């Protein structure tokens, strides 16, 4: 139906993101932020960084999940309105990476919440963040 099509199209064209650091080393965080800046400018895809989980469609998560951050991560995820997606950005977020085996680290983001796309890299290049979002959107299509 035309109506559904329009909605589907709008969803693909307007993914608003919220970023959460669940214990990352900052590198992935700054690379995500860098993706907003003129050189990469993800606003081209309609991506906007939002502060409130209620406004966001995509939770961009970086870092391994530490014991302290686990609850917060789950709360943020629950506050988001449906339909919602999660991208794990960085090796840490995929599987805890180099922090695998540290005593306060619980593992990748998928140990706490469901993840829709994984973007490996340490840190990910801003292009790889874009690549991840594009692949996620393709999979929704």
């Amino acid at each position, binding site marked *: 139906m035309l109506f559904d099509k329009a909605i589907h199209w709008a969803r693909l*064209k*307007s993914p608003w993101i919220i970023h959460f650091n669940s214990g990352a080393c900052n590198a992935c965080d700054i690379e995500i932020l860098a993706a907003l*800046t003129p*050189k990469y400018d993800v606003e081209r895809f*309609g991506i906007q960084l939002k502060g409130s989980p*209620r406004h966001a469609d995509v939770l961009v998560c970086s870092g391994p999940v530490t014991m302290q951050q686990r609850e917060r991560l789950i709360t943020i995820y629950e506050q988001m309105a449906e339909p919602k997606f999660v991208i794990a950005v960085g090796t840490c977020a995929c599987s805890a990476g180099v922090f695998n085996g540290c005593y306060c680290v619980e593992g990748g983001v998928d140990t706490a919440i469901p993840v829709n796309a994984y973007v490996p890299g340490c840190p990910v290049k801003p292009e790889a963040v874009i690549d991840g979002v594009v692949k996620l959107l393709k999979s929704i299509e």
Partner: protein
Amino acid sequence: MALSLINILIFPGFLFLSTLALAFEYVDRKLCARMQNRVGPPWYQPIADFIKLMSKETVIPTEANPSIFKSIPIFALAATASAFLYIPIWGQRSLYPFDCDLLVVLYFLTVPTLTFFLAGWFSSSLYAEIGSIRAMTQLFAYEVPLYMALLGPALLAGSWSISAITAFYHQNPLLSLLNLPGLCVAIIAAQGKLERAPFDIPDAETEIVGGTFTEYSGRYLGLFRMAVDSEMVALAALISAIFFPALLPANPVLGLLVFLIKVLVVVFILAVIKTAFARFRIDQMVTFCWKILAPVSLLQIVIDIIAKGVILS
């Protein structure tokens, strides 16, 4: 009857306003992006955002009062849409001009800010409440200069009706040059009214997350955004009707074109202001409004009174 229904709902009412609102949101965002040396959003972005928000799940916080929570955005939108009906678009006359419509429009344009306040207040979130208190504080700061800046030209024209003011300046275009200080004040105050940088204090993202709308999601957030955008168009239209009354061709199509260009100019200036400054602190903002904007708008009134005296004599 049917005609006025069309007028209200489609042109130049609700639908036309919404389209314009989305179009000018695009223009605003694109300009801002280009001034920051980046590409910016594609042309359909505001439409996509709007449709997406309308189709998204709406979460209503358990502590919030659902009926108030839901009805507030509609009030905001209705108020701006009504205000728009009284602003001349393609000629010297608005759709339903009457004697004091300037005041009515100004009241209508205050409603959205009040609704933002209520929205924040009733969503029982810390961030939203602070946002709404900030919105209120700001309202008291810019409202007076804005009114005074608009009343000056009205005094000179000797009417409280926007259509009459436009007609007056259309006949005496040179007189509108006298209103330049008022124009500056009006544009800056409009920036505050629209809660855009450097006056985006009520929804300063880095300080209080999403500000007044922190708890809003989905459809109601979409309506709010639409209300803010239409408020921008309405304000820009109001400013151009009062301050740039020249060049009003009789042909409605041409008139519409001229109108769009004028609004575009105002939006451009608004976008430059938004991009060029750091956010004020709320105390700085209040001081600025009272120490600079208010005196300038007072000056405007004095100028107009003197000019009026000269003309009359």
